[in-house]
């Protein structure tokens, strides 16, 4: 009740938008991920009232959507979950590839493996998971996973790793040139021995890299590109690596649920989000890259051109979307991970 009064009051105060709202739209997105200014602009331009709720993980969102009648129109799953949702028939085929603003999607992201041809999904934000190195401590070549697994003397004992089984094992397998989602016992044995040896060089295992790196407690840290950029802003000698052995890319995408109560409004939002000015608002809030050409013009250049955000052209072929491994592989990984942490 109060919310509707609030929106009505805001509409009157702004004097913008039609007097009568053209229906509603219920968005369910990751927490602290949606720019309030973006939704206000959408309501002002279309007259559609928006509610926003947050989830903490793809799994929570998926559980509620699978139960049916979630009431939500739009959700923002990560790449591999988009594929799961398409395969399970949970999404509406809204054909973003035929929408007016689709021409703005950068070619690199227009035909992703999780949604060939983009018949269902619109890009939200993407990023990479590699690592950052303080070049004041180590000035050699950092674009290799060896920094974390066979570090130079300067970095030994000053490394932070993400406490994530998938991220650490995938990085290790890439470093050793072995296939991902690996069930070959010999490969896994070699990987495990390599990690046991590497572990002596690690200082901490933590998702947060910014505070410890700025304070100088760690000099190399496994983590996300957005966090690496925020670290560099406080410690300019920090540099983000694009490992030559390859690295994971993730992308969150805007999709419409098959049982969406406001299907047409959801399609309007999908098209709206492929406009460069609107995509810039997405990135401006959460500080990750969008996949919309021309959005850089609406962002501060120090962000749009940041080396962590704008992947260098030579690194583009090295990025790969994460695969979903078989259950047997996941179980084997979990055993190894538990042993490794002992």
């Amino acid at each position, binding site marked *: 009740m109060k919310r509707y009064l609030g929106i009505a009051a805001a509409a009157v105060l702004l004097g913008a938008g039609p007097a009568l709202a053209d229906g509603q739209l219920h968005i369910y997105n990751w927490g602290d991920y949606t720019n309030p200014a973006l939704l206000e602009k959408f309501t002002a331009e279309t007259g559609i009232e928006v509610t926003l709720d947050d989830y903490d993980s793809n799994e929570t969102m998926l559980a*509620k959507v699978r139960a049916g009648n979630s009431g939500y129109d739009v959700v923002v799953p990560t790449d591999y979950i988009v594929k799961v949702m398409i395969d399970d028939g949970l999404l509406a085929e809204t054909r973003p590839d035929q929408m007016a603003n689709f021409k703005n999607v950068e070619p690199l992201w227009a035909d992703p493996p999780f949604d060939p041809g983009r018949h269902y999904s619109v890009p939200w934000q993407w990023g990479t998971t590699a690592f950052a190195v303080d070049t004041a401590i180590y000035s050699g070549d950092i674009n290799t996973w060896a920094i974390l697994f066979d570090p130079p003397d300067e970095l030994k004992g000053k490394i932070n790793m993400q406490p994530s089984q998938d991220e650490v094992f995938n990085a290790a397998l890439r470093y050793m040139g072995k296939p991902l989602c690996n069930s070959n016992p010999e490969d896994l044995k070699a990987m495990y021995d390599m990690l046991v040896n590497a572990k002596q060089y690690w200082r901490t295992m933590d998702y947060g890299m910014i*505070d410890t790196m700025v304070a100088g407690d760690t000099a190399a840290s496994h983590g996300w590109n957005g966090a690496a950029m925020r670290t560099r802003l406080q410690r300019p000698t920090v540099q983000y690596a694009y490992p030559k052995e390859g690295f994971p890319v993730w992308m969150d995408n805007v999709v419409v649920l098959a049982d969406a109560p406001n299907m047409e409004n959801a399609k309007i939002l999908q098209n709206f989000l492929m406009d460069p000015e609107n995509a810039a608002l997405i990135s401006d809030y959460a500080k990750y890259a969008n996949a919309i050409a021309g959005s850089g013009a609406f962002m501060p250049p120090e962000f749009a051109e940041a080396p962590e955000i704008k992947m260098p052209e030579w690194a583009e072929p090295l990025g790969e979307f994460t695969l979903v491994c078989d259950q047997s592989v996941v179980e084997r990984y979990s055993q190894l991970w538990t042993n490794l942490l002992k």
Partner: protein
Amino acid sequence: MASVAASAPERRRRRFDLRKQPGFGFMAALCLLVLYAPIMVLIAYSFNETRSVSQWQGFSLDWYVKAFANKEIQEAAWNSLQIALVATVIATVCATMAALATTRTRPWRGMTTSYMVVNLPLMVPEIVTAIATLIFFALLYAALGISFGIGNLMIAHAVFCVPFAYLPIRARLEDMDRTLEQAAADLYATPWQTFRRVTLPLMMPGVTAGATLAFVVSFDDFTITLMLAGPGQTTLPIYIWTSLRRGISPEINAMSSILLVISVILVTASFLLGRRRK
């Protein structure tokens, strides 16, 4: 002779007083430290000047100002409040009736079973209740097209709040002197008059204590709410949890501190009310 006999158990009791055992003070202090030091750190950093939650930079109230100005937080707080109030009213009424039926009647067949059923939500793992309730409401909608919106959450909260309201009320009823009610009946008061003029006023401290406890439990609930909340139904605990993915900021510390203070005040009030004698 009698005085000697009385003092022997007295002496024994003193000898076995747990609080006098060596190391008791140390262990107690250690337990309190482990339990409360993290919370103290959380509160302290909610007053930090910069975004860091590990390095102290100076005192500031900025994060509280930010938290109060955040529209999503305001809406989440309003949702939490509505749900907790409605759930408390439903739960307290049910719990009062259940407490009367299990203390002010002759023992009846199935009384123990009823007692256990009322308290079941305390025993069943919350995630099980959460998923079962999610499926229940989804089926209800699929089969009959019925959905109560935010009412779904209120009903679910009322269910698991019942035992929290029930236990203090029952304890109060068991403590009460039944001769007063018998005296009222002797003086030709009808059962309703006896309840309205004697039982209810005497049990009020228990009811208030139960209601306060139910309110806190609903206000703080996370697991069931996360599963059931629909569009526009984010509550404060859900908002805090989902914000964590992008890193802990002092704004979250500030909100957590506010939640904590509200809970502590209400639980203390509940405790004091429950302890109050006629």
